[in-house]
C-alpha cells in the first residue's frame, strides 16, 4: 500500500530526468531513451490518477444483478485503458524514431548531433 503522492513525485521526477536527458545528451539514441523515459513518466502519472488506496482491480469475478459501484471498491479503469493506448502509440513513435536514427547514421556516419554537418 503506497500512498499515491509518492507515485506522483516519482512520475514528476522521471519526467524531469527525461527532459534533462533530451536537453543535455548529444547522442541520438540517448535522446530517444530520454524521450521514452518522459513518456513512461506521463503513463505512470496517468495510471496513478485512477489509483485508489486499498481498492481492487476493476474485474467482476461473479455475476451480480444489482450492486452499487461504491460497494465494489474498484480502482478507476478508464486511466488504465488510456495508458494502454498511450503505450502502444509510444511504441509506434519510438520504432519510427529508431528508423530515422538508422538513416541518420547511414547518412552522416555518426550518431553525435553536433558532428552532423550541413547537407
Amino acid at each position, binding site marked *: 500500500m503506497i500512498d499515491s503522492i509518492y507515485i506522483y513525485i516519482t512520475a514528476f521526477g522521471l*519526467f524531469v530526468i*527525461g*527532459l534533462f536527458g*533530451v536537453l543535455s545528451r548529444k547522442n*541520438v539514441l540517448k*535522446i530517444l531513451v530520454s*524521450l521514452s523515459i*518522459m*513518456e513512461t*513518466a*506521463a*503513463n505512470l*502519472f*496517468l495510471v496513478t*490518477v485512477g489509483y485508489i488506496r486499498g481498492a481492487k482491480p476493476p474485474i467482476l469475478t461473479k455475476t451480480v444483478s444489482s450492486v452499487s459501484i461504491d460497494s465494489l471498491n474498484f480502482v478507476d479503469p*478508464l*486511466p488504465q485503458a*488510456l495508458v494502454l*493506448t*498511450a503505450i502502444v*502509440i*509510444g511504441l*509506434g*513513435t519510438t520504432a*519510427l*524514431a529508431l528508423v*530515422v*536514427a538508422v*538513416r*541518420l547514421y547511414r*547518412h*552522416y556516419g555518426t550518431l553525435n548531433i553536433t558532428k*552532423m554537418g*550541413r*547537407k
Partner: protein
Amino acid sequence: MNTNYALLLVGIPLTTAFLLPIVGLAGKKLARWIAFAALAFNFVYSLGLLLYVNSAGPAVAVIGNWKPPFGINFYLSPLSLFFATTIYFVGMIVALYRIGAETIPGDEKLSTAILLTVMAAGAVVLTGDIFNMFVFLEILSIGTVILVASRGAGISFRGAFKYIVFAGIGTGALLFAIGFAYGTLGTLNMAEIGLRVTEINFAVAGFIALMFAAGLLVEAEIFPFNLWLPDAYEGSFAHINALLSGVVGTAGVYATARIFLTLLGIKVSDYVMFYGKFNFNNILIVLGVLTVLLGEIAALTQKNIKKILAYSSAAQMGIVLFAIGIGTHTALAGGVFHLFNHAVSKALLFVAASMMIHKAGTADIDELAGLGRKSRTLALLFGVGAFGVIGIPMFNGFWSKMYVVKAAVERGGWNFLAVAVILGAALAEVFYYFRILFKLFNPVDIEIKNRGNLAGYLAIFALAAVILWVGINPSGLGGIINSAAGELFDKSTYISTVLGTGVLQ
C-alpha cells in the same frame, strides 16, 4: 440527414491509406489517383456537411452509441467543418499536384502518409474528446515525420529527427495535461470540461493550460516550439510543405483555440472572481507576437525559397494566435478567416514553388532568377498567392488582417504595440515576397530543365480562383466565419448541443 455518417471522413482515408501499398503493385500512378479520389470524397462530403450544419445548426456524431459525456463524439459545427473542409481541400490539391509530378521510389507509401496526415488533422478538428484528440495528434505527428523524411536527403532526416524530439516532449506534456484534467474533473469530454472548468482551482488550471500549450503549439509552429521548422521544411519536397503549413499547422492552431477558449475559457467578467487578474490568453498574445517578429526577421535573411515560405508560415500562425489571445468576437472572426486564408495562400505558394524548383532544378532564389520570363503564368500565379499572404487590397489576406488589427485597436491598451508588429510584419512580407517576384522577372537567361505538368497547373489555378473569389467577395464566407467565431466566443451552444444529445440532459 444522419450525421453519424460523418465518421466516413475518418474511415474512408484510413482504409484507402493502408490499401495503397497493395494498389501500388498494380501501378504507381493508379495509387496516386486513388489517393486523390479519397481526399476529393472527403472534401466534397465535408463541404456538404458544412452547408447542412450552416443552415440546420450544429450536430453531434455519436460513436458506437456511447452517448456523451461517456463516449467519444464528433462535433459538427460551422467552425469545425469549415476547418475540416479547408484541410481536406489542401490535401486534395496536393494529391492533385502529385498526379502529374514525377514518381519517386516508394511513391505509393508517400501517398499513404499523406492520407494518414490529412485524415488525422481532420479528426483533430472534428473530435469532441481530449484523449481522442491526443491519439489523432500522435497519428498526425507520425505522418508528418514520414512526410518530412520521404525526400531521403540528410537534411530531411535531421528535420524529421528534430520534429520527433519536439513532438515527443509535447506528447509527454499533453498526457500530463489530460491526466490533470481527468484527475480533477473525472471526464475527458470537452463539453463537460468546458461546463465545469470553474471547479478547477487556479493553480491546476494554469498548469493544465501551460501543458496543453507545450503539446499543441509544436504542431501550430509557434515560437519557441517551432525550432524544428527550418530543417523540416528545407528537407521535404516543396509540395509536401503545403501539407505541413496548410494541414498540420491549421490543425494545431485550431486545437489550441479549442482548448484555450472552449475548455479553459471563462467569460471575461468572471475572470476576477475565479482566477484573480491573470488571463491565460495573454500567454497566447505574447507567444503570437514573438512568433510574428522572429518569423518575419528570419524570413528576410533567407535565400532558400522553401525556408522563406516556412518562416512566413510561422509568422502568419503567430497572427492567428494573437487574434485568439485577444478573444473578442471581431478578433476571433479575423483569426478564423486568417487561418483559412493562410492555408489556401500558402498551399498555392508551396505548390507553385514546387513546380518552379522542378523546372529550374534549384531552390535558391538567386538561381531561380529569370524563370518568370520563361513561364509567365506560373510566376503570376505565385504572385497571386504572395499578394494573398501580404494582404494587398482585393486579395484574401487583406480582409482577415484588417479584422485582426481592428480588434486589437478596439481592445486598446498595449495591444497597440501588437498592431505595430502586425503592420510591420506586412511591410517585411512586402519586402521578401517582392524580392522573389523581382528576381523571377529579372532579365536573366535561365535554362528550363523540366516541363511543368497539367495537373499541377490545375491545382494552382483552383487555389488562385479561391484566393481571388474570397478577395473580391469576402462576404461570401462572412456567414460561416461569423458563426464559427461565435462558437469560439461563446461556448454555451457547444456545451448544450453535445451534452443535450447525451445521458445527462
